[in-house]
């Protein structure tokens, strides 16, 4: 239970597309609008991201994708893929991974169930209330492993599902093991310090370890 709370007066600016009634996730998919999410029946524009966010995302995506492909363990998708949260809610996680056994949740237009892993990269201008909402959404659909990579604070907040609850770990150094991607682990500093090691070198090291 979080005991420490901070009262803050925030000035928030959001651009939303609002219909006379809540838009459903099915209707949202028909729109084929870019870089938006569905939150409480309204289409919300996502803010643009900074270079550092994109560099980390591309590095991680490439690495995970190559690894998963080589191991034939599942599929890695990026931030253009919609995930259904509820009838009136849909998110576009920065990165998601679905194990092969769970491919039934994957369809052309969206993911209709909980990905095994979701990664969100937190940028300095991300609002705490938006991050809380993301966590709530991913927990509500039962994503097994949720990782928040905070570039400003240089830490990883890992949430892993244990029955109906989540166990939380915050890492600032050492190795990050991915529970849902067997054999995949990264050094925390690779995430937050540039230049990062080459993808091919990390991949070679990961693939050479005994399974």
């Amino acid at each position, binding site marked *: *239970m*979080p*005991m*420490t*709370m*901070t*009262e*803050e*007066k*925030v*000035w*928030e*600016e*959001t*651009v*939303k*597309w*609002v*219909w*006379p*009634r*809540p*838009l459903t996730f099915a*209707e949202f998919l*028909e*729109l084929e609008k870019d870089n938006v999410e569905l*939150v*409480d*029946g*309204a*289409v919300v524009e996502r803010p643009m991201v900074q270079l550092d966010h994109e560099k980390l995302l591309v590095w991680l995506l490439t690495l995970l994708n190559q690894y998963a492909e080589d191991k034939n363990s599942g599929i890695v998708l990026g931030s253009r893929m919609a995930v259904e949260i*509820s*009838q*009136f*809610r849909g998110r576009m996680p920065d990165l998601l991974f679905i194990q092969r056994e769970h491919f039934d949740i994957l369809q052309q237009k969206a993911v209709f169930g909980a990905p095994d892993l979701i990664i969100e990269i937190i940028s300095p201008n991300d609002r*705490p*209330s938006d991050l*809380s*909402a993301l*966590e*709530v*959404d991913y*927990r*509500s659909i039962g994503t097994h492993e949720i990782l928040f990579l905070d570039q400003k604070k240089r830490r990883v907040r890992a949430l892993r599902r244990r029955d109906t609850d989540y166990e*939380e770990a915050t890492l600032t150094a050492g190795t990050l093991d991915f529970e849902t991607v067997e054999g995949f682990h990264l050094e925390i500093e690779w995430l937050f310090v540039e230049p990062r090691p080459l993808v091919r070198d990390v991949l070679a090291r990961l693939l050479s370890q005994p399974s």
Partner: protein
Amino acid sequence: MAATLPVREKVTAKRVQWISAGPISFEEFLELFSAKEDYVELLDGVVVEKPMVQLEHEKLLIWLLTLLHLYVKKRHLGIVLGSRTAVEINQFRGRLPDLLFVPKEQMESVQQKAVFSAPALVIELISPNDRRADIVALEADYRTIGVAEIVFIDQRKRTVRLLRKRGAKYVEEIVTTGAFTLETIPGFRLETQWVFKEPRPDEIETLAGLLNQA
């Protein structure tokens, strides 16, 4: 639905919220805030202050609350609660509807600190300064938990929008003149002019009229 054009609104709002290290659950929200004077809701694990309302909103609310409360009590139908009662939407979400009715068959869901399942009826009064996206979000929440009858009373547009659950869907009725009935409260019928025009009829007299015809 896709044929209806949306309104693109840039929502720039100042709000007071309480942030903690992780999302606050509805249970924690009740523990932390139920005894306090703050008028707050829980949205996605964040406690958010509700904006203050205007006099017109409060006058209509009190009139409706009084009438509904007396009618429901007289007919032994259940309980009517006002805008300080929390309703659980999900583990990290809780709303404070302006008005709600829980039938006597569902009274086990009404507990000291909150209502823990869908009320049969929720009424929200829309004020001129309410944001469209916030109203849509309210509707999404009440539909998600399966409230049988959701009523939005828009004081500026002078419309009553009623949403009634039919299976997995909702059927909409918009009333601007004449009378409307509340399906979930048998025999309860109001004239729209009573709702939007002042002075409103006396509650006791109105109640007597309703009880006579029910």
